[in-house]
């Protein structure tokens, strides 16, 4: 009797389905099924008299119904994934589908999910993971955007100027920074709609009440909707600008101190705990490397600074990327042989502690090397070198995994976000998606 009452009949695109209200309840209130059987609508799901007709593809319905029944996703080969995504969107089951496809990110369990061929003519510049599993790829003057289902959205550009960096402001907006074009107000920085590719507004820089054109460099955001951008103006107006991300208004500017570099930074990183911004300018953009922490409440001085200017520098001591690790109170750097170095953030200008692996690597450099990049995700440190990404874990940063896809050549950039890792290869213009499988049922 209880079983009978629970039963629900559907006719989907001509095919009959029977399921239970319990199974449908898994879909949640925020789905077609949740709304349909809400008491407001006075539709008795147990009214056995008639079945509920839905004018949709029955094959996809079967897959999604199974997803609700078992929590597992199985896509038969004859169903295109794109079609399944569209159907999931109709039923309001996109979140279920996503959760079934990949689980919480862990560098030691990720596997290559797919490789997406790019269409840009030149080398890649940057790849950035979005918060919802999508990503954007910058090549030359274009930025291509992909959603979580790897559907490509309209590309974006800033006056067709060369893009230097991109950052996801939220799940539906991307900020680009690009070179200025001499004599015009082109380039700079702009905020785009990620799904339509439309430019919403540009971020302006004002010096002495005059709007000036500039070249936008590295970008970073903080949780207070502040956007930070490295800016190179025409006449010594170098430094780091700060904008309100919601209004697009400039709110602050940190001018570059003499003998230092802020306006041409390779990397900006906001430190939540310390409430300051890490700015790193590295070889070969400049002859020397400069890493500093800025506190915008006190623009008289930099709170922490390190540079190799004046020190005898061999290639094995040249910093190629840097990342601040707040939990450890240190900055991790990497040289071109993928040796990691560490500096204590609590002592300004402190010594670098290198961890050398160079002898192993030196003989094996490829003809056209890509400089190593670093990323940090929930206590795991990632560094890319040639066509491989290494994963380091634990307080001593032990090498625990290597991610490698032999196709595509060296990795020029990679990014982690939305529980996925995206790696952009320089030669074949292809990027890989790495994700962790959902935990097994058994």
């Amino acid at each position, binding site marked *: 009797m209880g079983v009978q009452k629970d039963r629900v009949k559907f006719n989907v695109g001509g095919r009959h389905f029977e399921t239970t209200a319990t199974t449908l309840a898994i879909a949640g209130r925020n789905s*077609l099924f949740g709304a*349909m059987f809400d008491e407001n609508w*006075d539709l008795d799901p147990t009214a056995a008299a008639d079945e509920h007709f*839905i004018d949709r593809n029955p*094959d996809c319905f079967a897959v999604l119904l199974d997803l609700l029944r078992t929590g597992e996703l199985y896509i038969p080969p004859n169903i295109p994934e794109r079609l399944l995504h569209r159907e999931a969107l*109709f039923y309001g089951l996109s979140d279920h589908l996503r959760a079934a496809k990949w689980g919480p990110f862990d560098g030691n369990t990720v596997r290559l999910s797919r490789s997406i061929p790019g269409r840009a003519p030149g080398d890649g510049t940057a790849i950035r993971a979005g918060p919802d599993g999508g990503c954007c790829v910058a090549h030359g003057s274009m930025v291509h955007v992909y959603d979580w289902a790897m559907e490509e959205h309209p590309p974006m550009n800033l006056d067709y100027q060369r893009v230097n960096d991109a950052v996801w402001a939220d*799940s539906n907006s991307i900020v680009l920074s690009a070179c200025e074009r001499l004599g015009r107000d082109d380039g700079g920085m702009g905020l785009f709609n990620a799904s*339509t590719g439309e430019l919403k507004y540009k971020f302006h820089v004002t010096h002495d009440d005059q709007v000036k054109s500039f070249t936008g460099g590295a970008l970073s955001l903080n949780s207070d909707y502040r956007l930070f951008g490295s800016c190179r103006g025409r006449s010594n107006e170098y430094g780091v600008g700060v904008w309100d991300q919601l209004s697009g208004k400039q709110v602050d500017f940190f001018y570059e101190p003499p003998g230092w570099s802020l306006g041409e930074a390779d990397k900006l990183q906001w430190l939540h705990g310390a409430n300051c911004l890490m700015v790193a300018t590295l070889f070969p953009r400049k002859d020397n490397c400069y890493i500093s922490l800025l506190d915008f409440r006190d623009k008289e001085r930099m709170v922490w600074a390190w540079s190799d200017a004046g020190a005898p520098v061999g290639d094995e001591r040249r910093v190629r990327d840097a990342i601040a690790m707040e939990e450890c109170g240190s900055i991790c750097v990497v040289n071109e042989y993928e040796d990691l170095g560490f500096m204590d953030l609590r002592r300004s200008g402190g010594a670098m502690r290198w961890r050398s692996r160079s002898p192993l690597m030196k003989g094996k450099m490829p003809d056209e090397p890509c400089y190593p990049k670093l990323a940090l995700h929930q206590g795991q440190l990632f560094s890319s070198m040639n066509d491989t990404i290494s994963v380091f874990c634990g307080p001593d940063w032990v090498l625990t995994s290597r991610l490698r896809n032999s196709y595509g050549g060296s990795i020029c950039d990679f990014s982690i976000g939305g529980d996925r890792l995206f790696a952009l290869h320089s030669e074949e213009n292809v990027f890989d998606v790495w994700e962790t499988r959902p935990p097994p049922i058994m």
Partner: protein
Amino acid sequence: MSSGQKKRNFQIEAFKHKVVVDPKYAEKTWKVLEHAIHEIYNHNASGLSFEELYRNAYNMVLHKYGEKLYSGLVSTMTFHLQTMSKSIEAAHGGSFLEELNSKWSDHNKALQMIRDILMYMDRTFIPSTRKTPVHELGLNLWRDNVVHSDKIQTRLLNTILELILRERTGEVINRGLMRNIIKMLMDLGASVYQEDFEKPFLDVSADFYRVESQEFIECSDCGDYLKKAERRLNEEIERVSHYLDVKSEAKITNVVEKEMIANHMLGLVHMENSGLVKMLLDDKFEDLGRMYNLFRRVPNGLSTIRDVMTSHIRDTGKQLVTDPEKSKNPVEFVECLLEKRDKYDKIISLAFGNDKTFQNALNSSFEYFINLNPRSPEYISLFVDDKLRKGLKGVKEEDIELILDKVMMLFRYLQEKDVFEKYYKQHLAKRLLSGKTVSDDAERSLIVKLKTECGYQFTSKLEGMFTDMKTSQDTMQGFYATYGAELANGPTLVVQVLTTGSWPTQSSVTCNLPSEMLALCEKFRSYYLGTHTGRRLSWQTNMGTADLRATFGNGQKYELNVSTYQMCVLMLFNGADSLSYREIEQATEIPSSDLKRCLQSLACVKGKNVLRKEPMSKDIVEDDGFSVNDKFTSKLRKVKIGTVVAQKESEPEKQETRQRVEEDRKPQIEAAIVRIMKSRRVLDHNNIIAEVTKQLQSRFLANPGEIKKRIESLIERDFLERDNADRRLYRYLA
């Protein structure tokens, strides 16, 4: 199925084109949805097909008619909300809120259903165009068309405020309805709740409590007023929990606190016959607790209480320590202090939540008035003496600790700790030498406490006294173990060897001992010096006691407990029946003042007069003659004669002690000056005074005049010199 054969992009494209061909498609679809929205608002949704509506809305978004769908939704919903608004306006009197509430719940239900139909738009079209989501849109439209409509906004506010006023005056109102209406304002956003309700509510409440507090204060005493204020405060907190936003609690309680407490604070504290002082006097813990809990909520509230309490304790304390009646009996004096301290301790723990700042205020007040009486150190030492002599008999160990702790507490308040030490040493010496101390444990326990309080130096001499007592015992055992056999028939000698310096110094001349004793003493001396080389023994005959067996003329035998001096005098009468004062003085060489006192206690005290004096009179003069009182009788076989009890010092003695203390301070001040100057090299006068005072304050409060004198003396002795250029500067001379 067939999808495998088709190109997937192509499929979508083809579908799109087909729709564009039918130009009326969008209009038709919208009509269906618009009709459905009407039906939903008209409670007529049962005939609608959810699936069809959902699909229609989906198709409109899919085919790029999202904008049309969205603007259609806005205008249709606005239309219905305006109709609702009219019906709410038309409601009379009391039914106004009920109508508003019922329409609000209708709208909410409709909004949910509309959102269900438009779910796809809500999820895809709205985020990508940055429009307001359906649910929020529905709330905004309700706010603009209903709550903010001219004829509703003010009426709504006035109705709510009036209901709250009625509840404050004791009426019962429909709290459920209030909760729903206030919840509606909260749902519309924090700014609506604050602007349309909270701010005016707080203003009206402030007016209400301003008037009420004025009425209360005119007709109630302090305790009653506080009770009323507390009740009002609790009522407001309860109101918030029943139907207001939690965040309002701090704001409304602030209003009550300001109007009822902060504005009347001084009036309450100083209220005649019922204010704070009266409460303190009468130990009104409950009222005091209430005052504390209410006042702590307002700025400066606690400091107001604390200041009044402090000045009250200081005034009454000053009266107590300067009362000449109280000073007559040191033990009673200290007991009064302890009683006072207990009283306020209890108040602070029961009513003031053991507030640290109050404890500090209590301590500083005690420190202030205890030091007003320069004899406090002496009295406290006498109190201890009294307790350790007899007061602790039969008292449990924990209670002893308790009393000692209390004494320590008073001790901490003393500025002249060195004076206390001086007296304590004297009193302790007397206790130890006369064997009068009740409990060795208690004595030691107090020393340990003093040590933890003031450090090793403070108690090293006191501990030395204990060590001497112990060593002496061992020495005596050793002495009798060696000579026991040959001394068996003679008198017994008990010697306490006191280290010079550890004990209160008493320069005295050794008297002539009776020959029996003298021989024994010499024997001991040679024994002692034989075992300890390099030492010197001198006899303190003024401090000893002796037990004598005496047989009087009538054959009566008594055991007399006397001082060493008295023993010397009495022993003379073994060889003579009567002696003159001069003869006694000559034979014993006891200093005349001591001898007079000693003879007085032997001859002039009734019932203990073992000697007879010629002529009979109270005072001893040099011409007096003495003889054994043959008629002496006593009920007891053991007779104790003329014990010297530690008593409050007489005025000249006090002066003497004072002088000794001052003398002792000099080297300490000098040492402090030299220590400071050694490290600072150059320092001006005021800074030296400040630093010396600071260094010494754990022992006593150094007098600036005295410090100045010490500096002068050090300059004379070439430890320091004045700077040639600036006379206020001193230089250290290495």
